[in-house]
């Protein structure tokens, strides 16, 4: 299999959106699109599945809440019960109102941090990671569409020209 890909550059988000729809309607597989900023509706046009990060965050929040319940119960009720200011220390439930701030903060802490860590892992971004955008202009004002080539260079080039690409390159992909 050839590693050749075609890189089509666009300089406008709306032209890019139309181009994506056109290329997909012609049954070509779009490998990747690199954008300098989020283009609304692009994920749907590309047929990307919705992200499940929000669901993950909800579950992390539940974990945080459970952890906080366990922690307050173990430390204040079981391991070393203290009667502070006459607040009841016999059951967790009776002492719970005083723990609400802790329960809330731990829920948010887990939900936020674990979600962001998941995002970084899934999108493969972390310190010392090398950037993978093929052209530096894609963080400035250019959008880049990457399409694998299967001996159909001429057809693809003509199609992409027609969609308003400002530059078309065929490159060997190293991977």
């Amino acid at each position, binding site marked *: 299999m050839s590693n050749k890909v075609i890189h089509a550059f666009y300089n406008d988000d709306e032209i890019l959106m139309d181009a994506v729809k056109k290329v997909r309607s012609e049954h070509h597989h779009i490998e990747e699109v690199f954008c300098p900023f989020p283009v609304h509706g692009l994920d749907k046009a590309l047929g990307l599945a919705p992200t499940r990060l929000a669901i993950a965050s909800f579950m992390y929040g539940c974990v945080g809440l459970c952890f906080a319940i366990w922690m307050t119960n173990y430390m204040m009720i079981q391991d070393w019960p203290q009667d502070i200011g006459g607040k009841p220390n016999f059951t967790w439930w009776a002492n719970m109102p005083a723990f609400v*701030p802790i329960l809330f903060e731990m829920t948010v802490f887990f939900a936020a941090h674990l979600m962001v860590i998941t995002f970084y892992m899934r999108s493969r971004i972390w310190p010392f990671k090398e950037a993978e955008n093929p052209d530096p202009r894609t963080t400035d004002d250019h959008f880049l569409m990457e399409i694998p080539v299967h001996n159909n260079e001429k057809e693809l080039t003509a199609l992409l020209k027609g969609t308003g690409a400002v530059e078309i390159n065929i490159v060997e992909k190293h991977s």
Partner: protein
Amino acid sequence: MSSHYEAPIREPLILGEKSYHDITVDIARPIEGKANKNWYIAFYIALAAMLWGFGCIFYTVGTGIGTWGLNKNIGWAWDITNFVWWVGIGHAGTLISAVLLLFRQKWRMAINRSAEAMTIFAVFQAGLFPIIHMGRPWNGYWVLPMPNQFGSLWVNFNSPLLWDVFAISTYLSVSLVFWWTGLLPDFAMIRDRAVKPFQKKIYSLLSFGWSGRAKDWQRFEEVSLVLAGLATPLVLSVHTIVSMDFATSINPGWHSTIFPPYFVAGAIFSGFAMVQTLLGIMRKVTNLENYITRLHIEYMNIVIILTGGIVAVAYATEFFIAWYTASPYENYTYLSVGAATGPYKWAFWSLIFFNILTPQLLWFKKIRRSFIWSFIISIAINIGMWFERFDIIAIVLSKGHLPSTWWRFEPTFVDIGIFIGTIGFFFVLFLLYARTFPVIAQAEVKTILKSSGESYKKLRDGNHEQ
């Protein structure tokens, strides 16, 4: 262009003829250029103040809390005043980036980056005070719930002071992560423009290898939205919990159920004032007048009027209730006839003048849209909000239930030095930030260029007439 439609009646948020590339160039310019003389002057003044403050902190830690003006009645004064003041200032950033994101306010995009930076730097300063007030800061880790050598005695989860530890550390860390995630695409932009190899390396490291794939952006937007949803109750909880440091006590003047909402409103009030102070200078220094416009200043002033109004109503309520109880103890609270005429009347009237009277000028549209007036009023609010906390703490504590113990607080040079030091430290961080970080969320601003850019709006208006 239909997908970018915005009503023509809305004023543009980005002025001038801008393209996507122009935005890149404008926002990279302060980083790629050299600092001017004014920057160096401001930096060295801030650095000197910071070093003086650090000296005072070392003196405090080496000698003891006795170097402060505290006494038997007033066990905390400037330290907790400054703590609450800085935490309050640290509220605007996350409010702008989280609450205004949920409300889909486009104007937040020009100011959210700097407001969040300000938040983080302000919370650093706030965090210093409880730590140095411990007297033995090397034992600071005792506030964490961990097994220890004194038997299995744990931290007290019933205590508002411990709630504070959890609230502030959650707030700081979540704000930091929110800020940094938003910075990744902008660092990537600087990285891809960098010419010098060293600069390229640094920004490559800071950008975490951000590449801007369609899937990354989809996740990025989802993460921003969920973080905003989480940060909104978080930002409200933080000052609520700070207010509980006082409200759960049994001192007249502190034991007040309106403290949580009133503190939150006050925090947003002071936070926006500080954003106004900083951006008023920054837009000039970094030539970003086309992005941080008169309209942004006006919108922030409107938030200031609203939150300032809430604060004023809370003051009136406190004053009325103190009088209505007919309890002699209530006459020594910070909002009472006793305070207005007693030895702290200068602090009482400063509060009223700076915090209630001065912001009323913003009802006038001319003043609300004036850069210089906004700047002056924002400084007044910063001072007024500091006095609010000072009044709550020093006036209430100066008169206890036993008149023979009444004593006033007088700050020593160490109290003053540490406070000035934190202001210096804050500005050192902010000035360094303004030189090395993309101060506007350029990726986000590019998304609103077509809907809210002046030239695009004009283009659309022209089409309507045809």
